[in-house]
Structures are given as C-alpha cells and as structure tokens.
C-alpha cells in the first residue's frame, strides 16, 4: 500500500487532517489482525467493567464488608457465575471491583514512570558519553540489578500494606526500565542526519530532545505502555497475593487467589477464577500492545 497515493492536498494542508489521516491508516493496519482486535475488545471490556463496576457487578455490595455465612462456599451456579468465597461473597462481583484497583494501579505507575524514565533516558541518551550519561545510567543499573518484582516486594514490605504504598513500590522499580529503553533509542537517534541538521540550524536542546528525538521513540513507548498495563497488574497481584497490597475486605486479585489456595481442592473456584482473571487482563493488553507495535512499525503494511 503506498501512502503517497492516498494523500490529498486538502488532508495535508491542515494538521488536524493529517493527524486524522495517520490515525485512520494506523487503525486500518491494526484492524487487519484479528488478534489485535480481540485484544482491543478485551481491553475495552475490562475498562468498561472497571468504570461501571457498581452498575454491572451482579452483587455490588459484596465488594466491601459483607458476610453471608448461609451462602458461603457455593460452587458456580446461575446465581453466582463464579461461585462464592469462604464468607459468602460473589466472586464475579469481587473480580469486577478488583479490576478497578488493578487499572488504577497501572495508570498511576505508568503516569509517574513513563515521564520520569523518558526524561532521564532522553537526557542520558542525547548526552551519551558525558558524565550526565554516566550518572543517570549507573543509577539506573543499580535499580535494575535485581528483578523488579523483588525490589517492589521489599519496598512494599517496609511500608504499610496499602494500595497506595504498593503503587509506590511498583513505580520505584518500574521507571528505570523506561530510562533504559529511551536511552538506547535516543543514543542511536541522535546520530541521525535530521538531528544533526537541527543542531546545525541552531535549534535549542529542548526542541531537539522533544521535537526531533522524542517523536521517534514514541511508537516503542506506546507499545511498552500498552504491554505494561498487563505486567503492572501482574506484579500488583503478586504483591497482594503475598499480603503486601490492598488489604481485605477490599477486593484484590492476588488476595483472592491467596485465600483460594487455602481452600484447594474442595473449593477450587475461589482460586481459579481470580487466576483466570489475571490471565485475561495480561492477555488482553499483550494482544493490544502487539497490535499497536505492528500498526506503528514503519516497514510493511
């Protein structure tokens, strides 16, 4: 597919037309792969469930302090599609509410780590070979010298176990990976002719960093962000599984699995469905992220 052939002069003249056009083209490439579309459907479903949880959950009151010992440990049925837990709460409703916290966590973690990582990575990459590069990248090296999950666990461990603190713990262990990715992109992009041309015309450093280099990192950044929503959910679930995240009675996927494991094998549904829910989230955002990567990559249509 040649892109030039489809460009009309009117769409190029105003910048909005151009943005719209490139969005359309990206969507076209994205929608060609049914797996990407499946990913998008899953992502939209999760976001919808999370946002409208009080309206779509069959038993919204079960998300908080609620006890019904008569209806405890019920296997999946038409009344409770995923069964009830040890104190009679509907598991499906709790999963839907847990999506809220999972997404909130992903948003907060990414909202802090992406700008921080991108900024440090851009700076270090553009000034690669100088002491700025050395300082930033050696600090980054220390943070990524142990797997993020272990760092997050140990930070969460010394703080009070709350959702907020688990977000802090994950953020601290997450940003250096953005630094490293942006660094490797920026340090190679800075040698491109268009960056050198901008330097020759006397463009400011800020302009070069944000208008010449950053836009060329954006497709990798967007892809990583989409994938990371899934991974942050996973690490968040790992923290709450251990007992270092959101505290009961508030629902968290990890806590629910931990409770369910105690009840295996008799009440298998208590652990299984939250585990499948995590799988669903990570799968959705992975398919979606891979779709974005393919749609934004310049080679082949």
């Amino acid at each position: 597919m040649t892109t030039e052939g489809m460009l009309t002069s009117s769409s190029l003249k105003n910048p909005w037309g151009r943005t719209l056009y490139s969005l359309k083209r990206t969507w076209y490439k994205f929608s060609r792969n049914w797996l990407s579309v499946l990913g998008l459907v899953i992502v939209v479903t999760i976001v919808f469930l999370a946002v409208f949880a009080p309206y779509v959950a069959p038993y919204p009151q079960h998300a908080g302090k609620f006890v019904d010992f008569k209806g405890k440990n019920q296997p999946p049925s038409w009344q409770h599609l995923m069964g009830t837990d040890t104190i009679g709460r509907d598991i499906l409703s709790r999963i839907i509410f847990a999506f809220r916290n999972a997404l909130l966590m992903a948003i907060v973690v990414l909202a802090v780590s992406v700008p921080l990582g991108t900024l440090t990575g851009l700076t270090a990459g553009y000034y690669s070979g100088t002491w700025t590069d050395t300082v930033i990248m050696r600090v980054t090296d220390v943070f990524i010298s142990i797997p993020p999950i272990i760092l997050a666990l140990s930070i969460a461990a010394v703080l009070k176990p709350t959702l907020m603190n688990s977000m802090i713990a994950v953020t601290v262990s997450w940003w250096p990976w953005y630094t490293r990715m942006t660094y490797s992109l920026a340090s190679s992009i800075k040698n491109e002719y268009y960056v050198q041309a901008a330097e020759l015309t006397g463009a400011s450093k800020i302009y070069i960093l944000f208008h010449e280099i950053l836009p060329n990192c954006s497709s990798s950044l967007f892809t990583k962000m989409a994938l990371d929503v899934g991974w942050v959910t996973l690490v968040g679930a790992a923290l709450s599984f251990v007992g270092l995240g959101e505290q009961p009675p508030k629902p968290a996927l990890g806590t629910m699995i931990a409770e369910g494991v105690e009840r295996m094998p008799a009440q298998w549904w208590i652990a299984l469905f939250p585990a499948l829910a995590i799988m669903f989230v990570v799968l959705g955002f992975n398919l979606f992220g891979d779709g974005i990567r393919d749609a934004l990559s310049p080679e082949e249509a």
Partner: protein
Amino acid sequence: MRLGPFILRRLAISIFVLFGLSILIFLIARVVPGDPARMALGPRAPVDVVERLRQQMYLDKPLLQQYGLWLRDVVTHGNLGDSLLTRRPVKQDIREFFPATLELVGLTAIFIIIAGISLGVISARYANTWVDKVVRLFSYLGIVTPAFAWAVILMLLFCFVWHLFPSYGRLTEGVMPPVTITGMYTVDSLLNGRLDLFWDAVVHLILPAIALALPPMSQAARLTRSSMADNQNKDYIASMIAYGVPNRVVTGKYLLKPSLISPITVMALDIAATFGYAFMVEKVFGFPGLARYGIQVMLNKDVNAIVGVVMVLGVVFITLNIVVDIIVAYLDPRIRLLGRSV
C-alpha cells in the same frame, strides 16, 4: 582470545553495581516508619532491652555511619545481623532456606533452557505449518499467565483431578530428609546413595518448577523462533546451502549460534526473575524455601532479614548476568573483540 580483560571489566562493573544495590536496599530498609527495634521486641519490652538492640543494629548512630558499620560487618564477617523474627543470625536462616529455592530454580532453569530453545527451533524449522501455529499459541498463553496462576491451575489438575503429583512440601510427610551436605535434597540424597529419597524430592519439585518455567520458557521459545526466522533469510545461510553444507550443520551450527544471543540474554533475566516469582509459587505449594522465608520476614518488617535476602538475590542475579555476558561474548565475537554490544 581476549576474553580475560572483558571478564575483568565486567567484574569491576558488577562490584560497583552490588555496592550501589547495598546502598539502595539499606536506604529502603531505613525508611521504615517507626523503630525497627521496638517493632521487633513488641510494645511491652523494657526500655533498656530495646535500647540494647538499637545499639546492636547501630540505630543510635547517624544514617551514614549506620551504613558504614553495616557494610563493615558484611564485608569482614559476612555478618548480616540477626533476624528480628527468628532471633537467629540472618546468615544462618538464609543458609537453611536458600538451598531449597536454589534446587527449585535450578530445575526451572533446566526446563526453561531445554524446552524453550527446542520449542523455538521446532517452531522455526516448521515455520507457518500447524506445528508452528500450535507452539506459538501455546507460548502466547504461557507468557500471559503468571507463574502463580499456573501453580494454581497445575495443582488443581495434577494433584487433585489426576493425583499424579504431591501438592505440598519438599518430601512426603514423615520421611526423614537426607543427611545435610549441600542442603539441596536432590543432591544430598544422591551423595548418600538414597535413590528413593532422590525420587521423592524430584517429584515434589516438578510441578512448582513447571509453573515457574512456563512463562519464561514460552518467552524463550518465541524469541528463538523469531531470531532464527530473521537469520534464516540472511545471505550467509543461503550461500551455506548453495555450497551443499548439510541442513543439520547449517541449522545446528551456523544458524542456531547467532540466533541464540538474544534468547540467552532474556532467559538469564527471566531465570533471575524466577527467584521473585518463586515467592508466590512456594507459597502455593507450601515449599519451605528462601522465598517463603522472605515473605514471612517481609510481612513482619524484619529489616535485617529483608536486606539479607535482597542482597543474596542481588549477588545471584549479578553473577548470573556475568555468566551470560561471557556466554554471549563467546557466541558473538564482535562483543568479545571490540568490547561493545550491538
């Protein structure tokens, strides 16, 4: 062979990183709101006892001096302080629990390397046939399902539906563990010549190891496939085939070697991360390893032990990275000779 200077340089960097990590984790452990000594001893402990523990942990000194004294103890005596939870030296606790986790992660690593690479090679060899499609679908599911979700699913199927594997612990209940030599039951039982014990230990390891191995193994398979598929179309492969070099040699020697560089790097990171996911999987399977100890000390804000566990894992992770860098340097002469990665 210019591997020597390369390894030395790599070692120097690692020591720096380890030093940085110790500062980082020490700072984290000291931001604990409240007094670790008071927390360890409980609210009813007499003031002078708490004060003595504070002095022992150097909590009465300024932060910089605390770090200096702590580092001195670690470097000179390998002393990580006493666990506030078990009241024993952290070193002793770690020595007791680490072999179990090492054994588990070791078996996991074997699964990851063998199954990951062979699935990738099979998938690339039969690219775009149904074999390839099945492997790719399977590896996608493998990647997106976290190890502890696998643990739940596998336990349900293999322990409770089909009763093939035990669901709890390191050995069948009531069985005496082998005489401690390394602390790893599989190794110790072999050294003692107890094949029955060896088998019992292996059976208890298999399911948790598979649960831990599935996500990284799938990742390795995917990477191996894609990098082999990339290299398959290179000119040097075409010329090998044109010269009449047997297919087996082309694939096994000339195609596989350069294609393994990126999977090996990622596998090392993943095997190291396995120590992290082992925290959850050990909990599911009631496996008494370092990770389960780690969870206990973390839930109890036992700062000395947290720092100890993280530092031990840091050393393991950094060592693993050096090993991988050496393997990669061996595979890729550009790194070995020019000292830079590509």
